């Protein structure tokens, strides 16, 4: 195997290439980051201390020309949840790292001096460069300056001002195809872990030689074509389909209509004003302004759900405004203005904050009386507090739960310290079981996937039915498998409905690894990976009592359906039965 593990020691500022151990050879992405964390990090380690580690791993197929394969996993012990974390992103950085032959990047230790460094992985070797000039700088400008300092043909990952504060909502940013800071492993505060290691940026130069090995080219090529066909055939993923036309924000009006789009800190499930920030509106505005839509987040993407949002006059590109970000910074704060949401999203990308957590934090601060729901200008001023590193800014940068405590709020929508995404679990109970049980803390992507039919689960489920353990379990296993393969989760729609697509995924994985896995084997990877994560959390002190939604969701009825979250605890716990 040509690929190596690159171990970066921040005590000594040294790097070392290691051969990939036999046990890790067929792992990638999330399975690999979680396995390394489980093997090398004490579950009792302080997330910001010298004994935590930060791992980056491209997926198994990442860097190949298989469609939608440009994903990377970042992993470590989370400062936000105190448990294991894998946070996944689509970015050209993933491809470049994979083609450089780096199967995993392990960052460990912490520098003796209180200093920040840039790690350059260049064509002619690895070097550390002092990053003093970049401290306190927003990431949009920092990435421009890094391109100037290191030249073109580079991809970047880095952390911003929020991470300099070692705040629990600091994400890890990556370059988008335009070189801007708009792609994120946002969730779980891994940016603070990177900063605690004294590492500000990693700059990777395009390698001269592509180091990716495809052991069985014929099987791989067959699979790649099958997957591409399925993606281009399916209504959700094809050209001019929902994702391509409107992006993920197509869900704003749909989930609002279903009564599950949380408004004003999860106090209602629908509001007609949500249409003001819908995917349809946004697509029209982008066209008017001269932004870009559709757009790809990474080179191999053929779905192209991304976009480039700009100011009204077409200037100052932000990058994509995802459904989750639009919701958290918008309706969840009672804000129904795309320009305000765009500027809040820009501030998050610039400061290095996870948008979902940031929006929930503002909503909780609104609930706590710091400002009124709907006060967009006020919300933007809160971002300035973080830029200025004020005590209030430090509170806000630590996320919704911390802010809830600071302001005495008893309605805080978190599980294991991480706040919920854009689906209220009261009228959509299946997602609630996933929020409750995933080792990641409340996370929609953890159980938002794939072919229930293939795994013997019914293709349709009543959102109000409380029998959701089996469904969530199978979705979580399948998702873990996709996150490890290195595919974008959105392939799930196509491979769920079109058998050829699922075969394509398995063929490409087998092609790269030279294995003979079946569909069931690939799903078993997901199951095993989840077990590793769950065990880490148990050793860190979590029990099934932590697999619960906040009290208010069990007692407070959500209009318009006027339902509470009533899935029994035993049903939730069944996710972890075999």
């Amino acid at each position, binding site marked *: 195997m040509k690929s190596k593990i690159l171990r970066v020691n921040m005590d000594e500022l040294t790097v070392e290439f290691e051969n990939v151990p036999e046990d890790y050879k067929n792992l990638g992405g999330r399975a690999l980051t979680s396995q390394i964390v489980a093997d090398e990090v004490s579950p009792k380690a302080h997330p910001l201390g010298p004994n935590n580690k930060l791992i980056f791993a491209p997926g198994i197929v990442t860097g190949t020309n298989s469609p939608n394969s440009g994903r990377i996993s970042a992993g470590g012990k989370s400062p936000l949840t105190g448990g294991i974390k894998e946070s996944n992103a689509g970015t050209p950085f993933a491809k470049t790292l994979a083609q450089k032959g780096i199967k995993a990047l392990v960052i460990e230790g912490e520098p003796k001096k209180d200093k920040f460094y840039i790690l350059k992985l260049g064509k002619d070797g690895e070097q550390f460069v002092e990053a003093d000039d970049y401290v306190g700088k927003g990431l949009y400008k920092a990435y421009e300056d890094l391109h100037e300092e290191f030249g073109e043909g580079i991809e970047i990952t880095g952390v911003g001002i929020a991470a300099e504060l070692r705040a629990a909502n600091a994400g890890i940013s990556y370059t988008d195809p335009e070189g801007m800071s708009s792609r994120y492993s946002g969730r779980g505060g891994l940016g603070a872990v990177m900063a605690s290691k004294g590492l500000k940026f990693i700059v990777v130069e395009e390698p001269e030689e592509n180091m990716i090995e495809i052991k069985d080219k014929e099987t791989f090529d067959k699979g790649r074509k099958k997957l591409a066909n399925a993606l281009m055939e399916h209504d959700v993923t094809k050209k001019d389909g929902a994702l391509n036309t409107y992006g993920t924000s197509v869900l704003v009006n*749909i989930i609002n209509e*279903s009564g599950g789009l949380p408004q004003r800190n999860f106090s209602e499930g629908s509001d007609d004003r949500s249409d003001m920030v819908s995917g*349809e509106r946004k697509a029209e505005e982008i066209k008017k302004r001269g932004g870009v839509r559709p757009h790809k987040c990474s080179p191999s993407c053929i779905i192209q759900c991304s976009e480039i949002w700009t100011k009204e006059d077409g200037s100052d590109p932000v990058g994509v405004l995802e459904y989750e970000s639009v919701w958290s910074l918008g309706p969840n704060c009672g804000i129904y203005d795309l320009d305000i949401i765009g500027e809040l999203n820009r501030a998050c990308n610039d400061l290095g904050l996870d948008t979902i957590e940031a929006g929930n934090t503002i909503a909780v601060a609104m609930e706590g009386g710091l400002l009124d729901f709907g006060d967009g200008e006020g919300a933007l001023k809160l971002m300035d507090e973080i830029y200025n590193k004020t005590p209030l800014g430090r509170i806000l940068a630590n996320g919704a739960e911390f802010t809830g405590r600071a302001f005495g709020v008893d309605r805080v929508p978190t599980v294991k310290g991480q706040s919920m995404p854009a689906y209220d679990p009261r009228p959509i109970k299946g997602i609630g079981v996933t929020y409750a049980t995933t080792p990641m803390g409340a996370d929609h992507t953890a159980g938002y996937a794939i072919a229930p039919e293939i795994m013997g689960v019914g293709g349709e489920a009543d959102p109000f039915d409380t029998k959701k353990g089996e469904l969530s379990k199978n979705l979580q296993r399948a998702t873990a498998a996709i996150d490890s393969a290195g595919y974008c989760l959105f392939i799930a729609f196509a491979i769920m409905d079109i058998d050829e697509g699922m075969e394509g995924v398995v063929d490409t994985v087998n092609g790269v690894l030279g294995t003979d896995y079946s569909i069931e084997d690939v799903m078993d990877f997901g199951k095993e990976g989840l077990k590793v994560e769950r065990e880490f959390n148990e050793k860190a002190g979590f029990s099934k009592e932590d697999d619960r939604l906040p009290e208010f969701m069990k007692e407070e009825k959500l209009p318009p359906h006027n339902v509470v979250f009533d899935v029994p605890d035993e049903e939730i716990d069944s996710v972890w039965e075999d």
Partner: protein
Amino acid sequence: MKVDVVLYGKLRERAESFDDTTGSIGSVKMNIEEESSIADVMARLDILENEVSHIFLNREYSAVERKVEDGDRLALFPRDMALLYKWYFTRKK
């Protein structure tokens, strides 16, 4: 009896009173006969079943056979807005 029909995306153009400058959702108030189904309402608007992805009757994910009652809200999404986690939603008949 009366129903409110809410038309999303490209379907909004079927609403006669739709004003592009004020909204992205078309809305129609219709008088329909007793015992009408969602399919009947769609036929009145010249909307074919294969043009529609998601249907919500009173915010419940629904099938076209479902009967409509006085005062109901019926929402229709076009085919190019198909994006639901279908395993979280079943069509109420």
